[in-house]
């Protein structure tokens, strides 16, 4: 139980940070920001790895591997495309 409460605490604090940080983003950066948060949301990769690599039944691990693949795709394409877009912001 104790730990769950820590989790909730952490969740609340992190939400505050998220709200605080994003408020000031310039409109110009909305699109890259979406790609970036998209990439970050692929943090589910952590769970996928745990499921895929653990000592579990194969069926479960297959689900994990699919999830891992999906997350990984997100991470790779998300960061790369963000970077690509940001490159275009360099001014003359």
């Amino acid at each position, binding site marked *: 139980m104790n730990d769950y409460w820590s989790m909730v605490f952490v969740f609340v604090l992190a939400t505050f940070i998220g709200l605080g940080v994003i408020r000031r983003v310039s409109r110009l950066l*909305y699109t890259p920001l979406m790609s970036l948060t998209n990439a970050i949301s692929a*943090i589910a990769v952590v769970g996928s790895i*745990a499921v895929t690599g*653990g000592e579990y039944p194969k069926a479960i691990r297959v689900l994990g591997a699919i999830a891992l693949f999906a997350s990984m795709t997100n991470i790779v*394409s998300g960061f790369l495309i963000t*970077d690509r877009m940001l490159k275009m912001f360099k001014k003359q």
Partner: protein
Amino acid sequence: MTYAVAQVAAILATALFIFSLYWMNDPKTARHAVVAGVSGMLVAVLATWFQPEIVHHGWIVLAIVAGFIVGIPLSLVPLTAVPQRTALSHAFGGLAAGLVGTAEYFLGLTEHPAQLTAFRTSAIVAEVILGFLTFTGSLMAAGKLQEVKWIPQRPVTYPGQNVVNIGVLVIAVALGVVVVVHPTAAWSGQVFYAIVGLAVLFGVLLIIPIGGADMPTVISILNSYAGLSAVAMGFVLGNKLLVTAGALDGSSGLILSIIMCRAMNRSFTNVLFGAFGTVQKTVATGEQKAWKQETVEGAAQLLEQASLVVVIPGYGMAVAQAQHRVRELYDQLTKRGITVKFAIHPVAGRMPGHMNVLLAEANIPYSALVEMDEINPDMPQCDVALVIGANDVVNPAARYAKGSPIYGMPIIDADKAKTVLAIKRSKNPGFAGIDNELYVQDNTWMLFGDAKAVIGELVKQLAGGGGLH
């Protein structure tokens, strides 16, 4: 020890993600943001991977390699396809969360029933619902944006839609409660599948009534859902990194969609709940040419992105005495390296040289003024023609409408610009008293209001760079 390493890694990754988002505030630091994000992800992946529980590495490597193979080409889509790509990506993210949740549940069911405490089971159910609805919802959104032929682009609505949608969601949640209460009953697995099915269905239903214009906002909300499903996963796995990263993502998606709704003059709740009720009306007006309004934020953005802006002042600028505001706008744009020209029509205003008097008063350099004959050949290259209280002098009817009082008068070819932004107070005509089709052209956006006030707002946008409060 490994536990401590994992914790330190989690803290480090969290900090990196926070910095990543923070640096995104400013184009100058935005590229650091990517570095921080990548580093955070790397730390997270490695720390997880090197935990002692991870014993099978083959599949992991395989899945990662596959991820790269698919991810790299996905990142090379043309920029016009970026929204679709992001939506697709969300679908993947949702899928991953949903699958992990499912795996966790059946793992509990088959191997460690004791682990299916009420808390964990609730978290799993939340993760699965959020994950799968994000999955199909994002797929639908991507399809609409990509104009896939068997997904209708325009909003599809039918009577009772709200009831059906909410019903599906309610049933899914209710089943979830059932599973939480009886996590290990013989039929629980079936119920769980039902939940998954309903979530998949709900994702589809959610997007169907939303039109293309609202898609960016929807994508942002789906992003938020994806983040929340990661939070749920974090609760399930007892992983604080997942919780923080997910929360960052969830909250930023939320804020972003609120900002975008405001900028686009949309009701956030409508978009959030799948446009239940009102959005249809605005979108469905159909063929007859309509006056399209742009927000100041949108207009500012358009101007910011332009490389050649042609300002066409008219009598309205004089009436509003907006010349000093126009100068501020000029300063803001030229500061960004944008070329700004003032196209002066010979009879703009109400006296010869009316515009000159005002622009000189505001100290706009003579070199920025261009005569009609000089600017017209360049108008097709003009990114934004900003019409400030001018009407007759940009009325295309002068070219062909024989009966019109202005027939034969040369005009400034504002209509040939890539985009037209026009500022006036109302739909009233100008001096000659005739309608102006320029205003209802496809690429024209109106900014209704007093020119001084509107340009003041534009300047504020460009100077302050937004902000919510």
